[in-house]
């Protein structure tokens, strides 16, 4: 999957409509980021990559770039 496409799906999952984000945007700086956002990311990654992340793993993730590394860089193309 293209990184750009993943970022779009990420925005959709977290219902980010008003702000622009990129792979370096700190997750905690996203407006309204909360425990439901964590649940949304887990559901998204499960749906797209059949990979079940935990909230504990996500607590270590600071931005989308880190998230893609956690999912596995081999799943992404520039």
């Amino acid at each position, binding site marked *: 999957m293209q990184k750009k496409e993943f970022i779009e799906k990420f925005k959709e*999952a977290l219902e980010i409509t008003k702000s622009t984000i990129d792979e370096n945007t700190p997750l905690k700086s996203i407006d309204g980021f909360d*425990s439901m956002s*964590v*649940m*949304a990311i*887990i*559901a998204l990654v499960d749906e797209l990559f059949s990979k*079940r992340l*935990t909230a*504990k793993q996500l607590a270590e993730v600071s931005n989308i770039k880190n998230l893609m590394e956690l999912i596995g860089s081999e799943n992404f193309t520039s």
Partner: protein
Amino acid sequence: MDTQFSLQGRNIIITGASSGIGRSIAIYCSKAGANLLILGRNEKTLKETTEMMTPVHHSIGIIDLNNFNSYADIIAPFVENYGKISGLVHSAGIEFSGPYNMTKPVNFQNVFNINAVAGFELARVVASKFSDSDVGGSFIFISSIRALFGFEGATAYAASKGAVLSASRSLALELVKKRIRVNTVSPSIVLTPLVEKYFASLPEENIKKIKEQHPLGFGKPEDVANACIYLLSDASRWMTGNNIILDGGYSVR
């Protein structure tokens, strides 16, 4: 156990007996003297359950609950060996956690198929083919506190458990003529592999908050098993179409 709570000689089917609540129900029913057909996907974990059970008469059945047409063939050999079925506990369940914008038709279908439809179909097959109105029976569906109280991220799961709760009332009325009682048990958080999976999707502070909402703490599988023994036995002969809430005080406030 010669009491009102005895299940001596009763033939009972339990789904989801590979782990968690279903496993505990199987163990406690075996202690109460029942002949059991325990159903699950995994032969190895079902065998582990039988090792924990009182060594009475029991069989295991490997089942994919999504394969609705397979139920009668899996139950028939048990009935040939032990006689008609007088108890059914549908404890198998799956969960889906996710915000509503991520909850798609397939997520609803998956949880509904296992949590609700599989139980309804088993009840239909058992009541129409394998029950005896001279003996009567007791069917139990494991619902959830989520059917009664809202919780973010649990829409699909809650809906499936709500279906179980409401369907059991109508089913109870229809099955009265076969002398089969139908009830539900609605537990809050019981420490099982399913809950561990759910907790893994929650930040630590949320888990702490949920724990604080349970004055008696989280439940153990045997807390649900004990309620099932009551519902399966003659001790509950006057109870049908009803629901037992087991929640450690969650709903008190």
